Every structure is written in C-alpha cells, then in structure tokens.
C-alpha cells in the first residue's frame, strides 16, 4: 500500500492490464515515449515497448476507428484521448460504430474499447480544454460511461472497464488528477460498473455528484453539518448505467435532492437524474429536485472559470432552498 494520486492509480491499473493480458494495447497521442501529457502512461512505453504502447498520429477518428479494427481480432485497445474537448473528431466513430457494434453484429463482435478521457475544468487549462460533455455519451445507447472521484475508485473502475466486454468511456476528472492522495490497494481489484458510492451518510438532503463535483458536495455537506443539517453525498461513479437503486433509496429517505455537475445545465445528466427520481420517488419528495450546474454558456476561459463552476456557495443555496421549501 502506497499513497497515490489518481494519476498514479490509473497508471498502476494500466500497468497491471498490460502485464496480465498480452492483447491489451494503449494507443493515443503522446502516450508512448512522452508518457502522456498528464504522465498517466509514464514508463509504460519503456516497460512494454512500441507495439503495446503506441504513439499515434494526431487523429482521433483514426485512433478510435483503428482501435475498433484491432479489437475485432482479439486486441483490447485502451485509447487515450488527450482532453474531452478533443474527442469530437472521433464522435462519429463512437456514435455510429463503437456503440452499435455488438448490436449490428448481433453479438459476434463488440468493440470492447476503453476510451480514457481527461475531462472538466478547474485547473486553469488553456482555452477549450475544459469540456465536460458526459451527457452526450450517456445518451448514446450501447456505451458505458464511468468517472471516478478518488484514486482507489479510479484504479478499480478502470480495471473493471478493461475487463468489460463492452465499450467503456472512462472519464478522468482533471481537477482530481493530483489533488487527492490516498492509499491504494496493490494488485488487481475491480469496482463494479453500475454501482454508486455513498460517500457520506445523511438524513436531510441527498447530494448527487460525480467527478470533480464530489469534493464540492462533500465540503458543502460539512458546512451544513455544523448547522444541524445532514447531507447524504452520493458519488454516482457510473453515469451509464445509473445506479437507480442507490439513487432512489437515498432520495426516498431524505425527500430532498440536489444534483451537482459542472456541465451546462440544459440537457445535462442532472436532467436525467432529476427526471428519474421524480418519476420513481414522486410521493417521497418534499421539495423539487434542484440542479446546481455550469451555466448554459460555452465553458469560459480560466479567468471566469470559477464563476462558471458550481461551488460550495451555490450548492449551499440549493440546500437552503430544498430544506426551507
């Protein structure tokens, strides 16, 4: 056991996967010699060579499309897209092929890629590097979408994704890449896709968050605890499929729900979660389900990024509203 950042935990998972299965490949821009622009793949090229850890041309459609081809003959490509803001050139390959391949081939093939994508803001990145468009992918049937909020979850979820027989979009919150260190279990372990995690127990309000919003939710929960209001904080982790059981159980218990995400509000994943809860837990709700989200504006450059992102103050307001409703 060592204290690791999320970057280290992900690297460890990749190392284990490369080690345990000769068919695992890593492909992406700068993932090889350079070890990835965030150093996630640091050392893997040196350890496993150019045929396992592959620096590709600058070509997202090419990377994702070729990885599908590789997967047909038994390889397990783990693709790194440098930033979520740059996944769009590969969007057609994901929507029209990766997500539909199992259906279109009636189960003969399945395009079981893992696509790793750093996402979200909060790190003063250059312009157009901070998109958080998870809901676009959640809407595409045939894809699984997961995102960890801790190093331990990152490793366990990634290993699950790698074992998964279906394509998984693995979203890595940039803001949390190095901000948390924790002891991470050695060796192979899996955290099941489809399971949310209750990260704090509470009775009065349910806070639903994922990725970099989990610490924001936690901080807000702490703040309210002093005032006698306990929040249950749930890290969804799995964005598709959603852990409906966990979400609904908590919502039914507290009757008050606030959803926090950094993506713009309209048609964000918060909408789905709210729609789901009001449908399934209607009679339990004491107040409307509120969403604290990015605004419906292009993700701003970093000077205004703090104003765009949900923070303790905004989440706090929403809690105030639901408890005083």
């Amino acid at each position, binding site marked *: 056991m060592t204290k690791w950042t999320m970057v280290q935990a992900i690297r460890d998972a990749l190392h284990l996967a490369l080690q345990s299965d000769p068919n695992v490949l890593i492909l992406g821009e700068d993932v090889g010699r350079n070890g990835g622009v965030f150093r996630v793949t640091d050392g893997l090229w040196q350890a496993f060579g150019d*045929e396992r850890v592959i620096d590709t041309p600058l*070509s997202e459609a090419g990377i994702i499309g070729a990885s599908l*081809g590789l997967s047909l003959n038994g390889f397990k490509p783990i693709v790194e897209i440098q930033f979520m803001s740059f996944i769009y050139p590969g969007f057609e390959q994901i929507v029209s092929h990766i997500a539909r391949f*199992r259906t279109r081939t*009636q189960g003969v093939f399945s395009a079981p890629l893992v696509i790793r994508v750093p996402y979200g803001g909060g790190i003063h990145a250059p312009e157009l590097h901070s998109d958080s468009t998870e809901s676009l992918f959640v809407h595409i*049937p*045939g894809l699984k979408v997961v995102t960890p909020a801790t190093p331990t979850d990152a490793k366990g979820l990634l290993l699950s994704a790698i074992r998964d027989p279906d394509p998984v979009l693995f979203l890595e919150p940039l803001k949390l890449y190095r901000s948390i260190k924790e002891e991470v279990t050695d060796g192979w372990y899996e955290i099941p896709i489809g399971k949310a995690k209750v990260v704090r127990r509470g009775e009065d309000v349910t806070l639903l968050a994922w990725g970099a919003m989990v610490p924001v939710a936690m901080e807000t929960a702490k703040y309210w605890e002093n005032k006698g209001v306990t929040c249950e904080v749930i890290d969804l982790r799995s964005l598709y*499929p959603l852990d*409906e059981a966990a979400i609904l159980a908590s919502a039914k218990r507290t009757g008050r729900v606030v959803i926090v995400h950094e993506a713009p509000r309209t048609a964000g994943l918060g909408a789905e979660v709210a729609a789901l809860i009001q449908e399934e837990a209607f009679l339990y709700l004491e107040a409307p389900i509120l969403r604290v989200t990015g605004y419906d504006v292009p993700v701003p450059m970093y000077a205004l990024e703090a104003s765009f992102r949900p923070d303790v103050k905004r989440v706090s307001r929403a809690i105030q509203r639901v408890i005083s409703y």
Partner: protein
Amino acid sequence: MSSDYESDWVQYISAEGQLTTDGRKAWEQLSDQLKIQFYRWMTFVRLFDRKMIVLQRQGRMGTYAPLEGQEAAQVGSALALTDQDWVFPTYREHGVALTIGFPLTHVLLYWAGRVEGCKPVSNLRYLPPAVPIATQIPHAVGAAWAAKLKKEQTVAVAYFGDGATSEGDFHEGCNFAGVFQLPVILFCQNNGYAISVPFSRQSAAKTVAERALAYRFPGIRVDGNDVLAVYMVTSQAVKRAREGQGPTLIEAVTYRKGPHTTADDPSRYRPREEVKHWSRQFDPLTRYQLLLKNFQLLTDSEEEAWELECKRRIEQAIKEMESLTSPPPTHLFAHVFSDLPPALHKQRLQVKQKEGKEHD
C-alpha cells in the same frame, strides 16, 4: 504525373472483349475454373441485383442500392481474397458479399430491414456494411494492424466509393496505413458519382489513385469493368500486403448503370447518352462473356443453364428469407450489451408487456 494517372490504367480485356498483350500473359496463368468463376459470379450478382429492384418495387424489400455495372470490380477483387481476410464493405457491396461466401439470405434480410442480415457468419470475416461514408476505412486499417501485430498473413480490405475519398476518415485511415505500413487494401470503386455529384466536383485530383502519393504507398488505377485486370491487380496488392510490403490503394474505374438507390432518379443529374455509352461500351459482363466465348469456355446453352440456376438459387433464398420469422420486439435489447443493465431490463419488460396486451 497527373497525365500518367489519367491515362494509365491496367486493362487486360478491351471493351471489345479482346485480351491486351499483358492480358494474355495474365490469362495464361489462370485456371479455367477461375475463369468460369468470374463469369458465374458476375452473372449471379447481376441477376440478384435485378431481382432486388423488382422486389423493392413489389414492396418486398426496402430502399435498395443497386450495383449493376460494378460486377467486375466486386467479383474480381473478392475472388482475390481468402476467407481469412477481413472485408469491410459499404451498402453496395452485395457482389463482394456473395462472391466471398456471405449467405444470400443475409443480404436479403439486410435489405428487408432486418438486423439479422448484418450478422457475420463464422469462417468468414465479412463485416456489416458501413453506412456512414468512409467510416469503415479506419476499421480495416485496425484489422490489418492486428494481423501485423499477430504476424498473421491475413489482409484487410476496405471497400468504398469515389465520394468517400472526400471524408476525413479516408485520410485518417490512409495515413495510419502508411505510417504503420499495414497489410490493408483500400479498394475504391470510382463509379463516377456520389449520388448525383460527379467525381470532378468531389476532388480536384483527376484520379483516386494519385491520392495514395500523399501517404507514400502505391495507388493503382485499373479498368474496373475488366474482371481479369481487377483480379490481377488485387491479387498483387494482396501479395504485397501478405509479404509485409504495406498498403495499396486500388481505384477501379467503373460506372453505376442504375440509380444510386431505388429512391434515386439519375435522369436528374446525368445525361442519357453517358449512361448508354458506359452501359454499351463498358459493360463488364458482356465484355467478359465475349472473351470466354472466344476461348470456347462458354457456350450459349451453358449460359442459359447458368442463368436458370442463378434464378433458381435466388428464388429459393428469397423464399427462405421470407419464411424466417422476424424476431420479437424484445430483440431490440438482445445485443446492446453483453449483460443487460437493470434499467434496460425494465424497458425490455415494458416491450414484452405491451405486446401482450390490448391498447389501453
């Protein structure tokens, strides 16, 4: 070079059904059996294609993409492959499909709107048609890459049209093929049009083959209505690929005699004379039949018999296809994921319940 590319193509059988000098050499290398296969498959494919148009008109098939005119390009290239090679077709490659051994019933199912028609069969690596243009090119590149990494001798072939060369995926696929020197064949049927748009509006390049220059692998232009030339050129590309010499781009110059699909009206965008010209002068089947007859490899009665046999097989497959009961609505959920997540279970149940009960 430009002029080279425009005038230079590989032709072994002239439009009049005569062997060229090179053609004679090629011809002598091939078995009679293969020569007859060329004819048989082209005939079969043509009769299938014509029947499909009839079925579509009768409402027994959905919108269909005819291939008449492209039989030589498809049959000639397909016969150069083995069942270990990966094939990534478009929506117009029925000729490739059938020649390579993909079941006729599957092809029929596909055009009847049934996903079962997409299903790859074992002992063959023929993938479902790529509908979004050019998207299959990176797939073929990836499959070839896998073969190279595994040191298998298989090649991968992406079939696509002239219009596809304008898409980013064409470029990205070719670029990967070049960089990683992959055993892939990029087989373009330049049939002159992308729906209504002529190749001159598609590209300033006068040929597709010259596009290969940018990726530093060979681009070869071949008379796509000459089954012998297509076969030989493809065979060479296959050989190169198997020997580790990397990709080849093949441009088979041909012509789509009919509409883009049964929903298209080509008289809106191309002159009748052009169609006549191509259909008369360059028909791949007529030309080849002439040649075979010159060589006494085909008689009128054999021809008649084979056509009857084709029709019989086609009719039988149609019957078979139409007798296959469509899977139930819950089949929507059958292959979305390896294991159905709970929310999908619920949706599936809704479908099941709905189908059982009356309205309201």
